[in-house]
């Protein structure tokens, strides 16, 4: 599934930064050699992409029209999986959960912009330390993140509820209560992506020429006005890039859901999971727990479709708000 969505970005994101002029096939002997060598150099990556990404996409499409036996072997069933899928309330619920989760995680994008602006404050002491602290969750194994947060959210022994009790709020079973579980995982989703987005934003901020600010200051613009008239428009390509990547990542969420809302190690089912499954989690359950791989492939394709549509909408909408300097 990751394969599927990554392709759609990889193919389209460069376009956002301006399409390079297409080079025509070389005609001279030297030019042709150079061209061949170029091909040879991209061959390892290209082959890898073909074998591990592009081929599985078509394979998945094919499997979505099949039904699987318990241990492999499949028969063609036509559109049966898709027909079943359209009437499956579980799929609908999972789609809704996925969209809610993604919406919440996208709220982290402005947060990371603010953080980037703060960290870029000239003369800030220990900026590198802050940067490392915010970036740490990005480079930490999701498995470890999930385990630690599951403990932090523990209703009886967790740190979150302990802190809440200090200010007189009685806590909840954040990851075992169907009412809160999705929001609790979205907080972790934001926490895990904010550092990465912050670094990209910070790079974008550094790319804005200082002259603009100096000119604006001469014209009498205050810091707030400068932010909205210079920083924001100049950062819009970065913001667009981040929004597209973050939403695709969030739509494919699996790890934090599996780790925080999955069954615990004594194999007891979490009472919160059935109301809060996301699409990829549902895909995992159908493919690997129920071993209904054909149906799971169909679910994966529906997600691909959703991501594709949302990404196309984002690319359409960018024309209204993204400024390329």
């Amino acid at each position, binding site marked *: 599934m990751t394969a599927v969505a990554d392709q759609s970005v990889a193919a389209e994101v460069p376009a956002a930064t301006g399409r390079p002029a297409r080079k025509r096939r070389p005609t001279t002997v030297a030019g042709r*050699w150079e061209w061949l*060598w170029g091909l*040879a150099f991209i061959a390892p990556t290209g082959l890898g992409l073909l074998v591990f990404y592009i081929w599985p996409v078509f394979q998945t499409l094919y499997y979505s029209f099949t039904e699987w*036996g*318990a*241990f*492999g072997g499949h028969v063609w069933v036509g559109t049966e999986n898709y027909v079943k899928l359209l009437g499956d309330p579980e799929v609908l619920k999972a789609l809704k959960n996925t969209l809610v989760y993604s919406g919440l995680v996208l709220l982290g994008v402005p947060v990371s912009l603010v953080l980037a602006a703060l960290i870029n404050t000239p003369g800030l002491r220990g900026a590198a330390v802050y940067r490392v602290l915010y970036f740490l969750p990005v480079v930490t194994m999701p498995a470890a993140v999930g385990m630690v947060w*599951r403990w932090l*959210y*523990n*209703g*009886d*022994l*967790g740190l979150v509820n302990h802190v809440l009790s200090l200010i007189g709020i009685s806590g909840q*079973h954040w*990851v*075992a*209560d169907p009412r809160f579980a999705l929001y609790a995982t979205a907080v972790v989703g934001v926490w895990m992506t904010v550092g990465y987005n912050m670094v990209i934003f910070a790079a974008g901020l550094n790319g804005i020429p200082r002259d603009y600010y100096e000119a604006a200051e001469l014209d009498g613009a205050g810091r707030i006005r400068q932010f909205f008239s210079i920083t924001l428009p100049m950062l819009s390509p970065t913001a667009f890039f981040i929004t597209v990547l973050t939403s695709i990542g969030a739509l494919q969420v699996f790890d934090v859901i599996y780790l925080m809302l999955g*069954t*615990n*190690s*004594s*194999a*007891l*089912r*979490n*009472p*919160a999971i*059935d109301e809060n499954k996301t699409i990829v989690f549902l895909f995992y359950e159908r493919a*690997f*727990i*129920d*071993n209904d791989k054909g149906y799971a492939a169909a679910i994966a394709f529906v997600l691909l479709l959703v991501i594709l549509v949302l990404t196309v909408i984002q690319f359409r909408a960018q024309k209204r708000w993204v400024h390329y300097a």
Partner: protein
Amino acid sequence: MNNRWWKVALAATVVLGASACGGAASSDGPVTITYAVWDKEQVPAMEKIAAEFEKAHSNVDVKVQLTSNKEYWTKLQTAVTGGSAPDVFWMNGPRFQLYASQGVLLPLDEQIDAAKVDTGAFPEALVDLYTYQGKKYGLPKDFDTIGLWYNKTLFDAAGVGYPDANWTWDDLREAARKLTDPAKGQYGIAAAADSQANYYNTIFQAGGSVISADGKKSGFDDPATVEGLRFWVDLINKDKVSPTIQQMSDTEPAQMFSSGKVAMYYGGSWEAVGFAKNADLTGKVDVAPLPKGKKEAVVIHGLSNVAYAKSKHPEEAARFAVFAGSPEAQRIQAETGAVISAYQGTQDAWLKATPQYRLQAFLDQVPDSVPLPHSKNTAAWTKKAEELLLKAWSGEQDVTEVAKTLAEAVNTELGNEK
């Protein structure tokens, strides 16, 4: 110049790569057999058995592979689908028929005869459990029953007498009430929605059934079955002597019991070693037979060692699978105290391994035991039970209502079994 240099480098890489592959392919070394297990506590015993096997078969190297209980079946089924399952692995009753019927397992009859293992020395029910269409696919490895583990320190503090063989459901409920102290976050019992350790036992004690004897119909809507389910639901929602399912999802029942937050815990015979190793529990816990309902009953189950039909070394795999069921291997296993070995006469060694607990309670219940419910595709309907029963356990829906929905769902799944 540059071009030529690169061509040489490229050619060299290709040649080196090819020769490296050639080197790996020609292996004359010993045969390696992988042995997949899911219980961490049993790994030392399994390694000892592997070492014993290697002594007699010097060319074979047995590698014990541990996968957590939670991921074992997912991983195994995926590995079988991909054609790369472990050579020998643990099998349980609920999953056996699916694997045997699909030709995943190697029939072991020949090897059992060759090794002269007396199958009469195992409980007959367990031998039958792993026989499919007249062929034996695994020798029983062990068996287990469930017992009532209790924390003596908490019982003493509350002035409650220890559980004994005469206890009934009412005694348990009464004791749990006295042992619950909300101020301390202490509960009488952990009433998790666990099938084998909890509600199957009470279902049978109430005279109910899970699936019919012919495996065609669900018994979940039988009023007696509902009573067996309600027992647990009431402990949480009516008597409030158990943590809620949310609490038990956050903190596992076994962990609550180990940390003295829960005074009683229905746990299998396999728990003894873990409790004995836990320094916090030294001198604090013991075990009794399960309290009886309308009658006495306990779930009995046992694993077996099976061999993978597509193993690269079927001969050695089958030999090892049979060896693990031999009297020597069964004795080694029993002596570690991890599980009750299935082979006749090896149970004493298990009792002696952890003498601080009255483990005889597990063996005493065997005459009243009922096999763990299973059918051709058990996982398909137990999954429904797992999902739906949570609604009863949370108090969201009445048990009778949930049981009715569940019975219908299970009947559908059983109908899908051919």
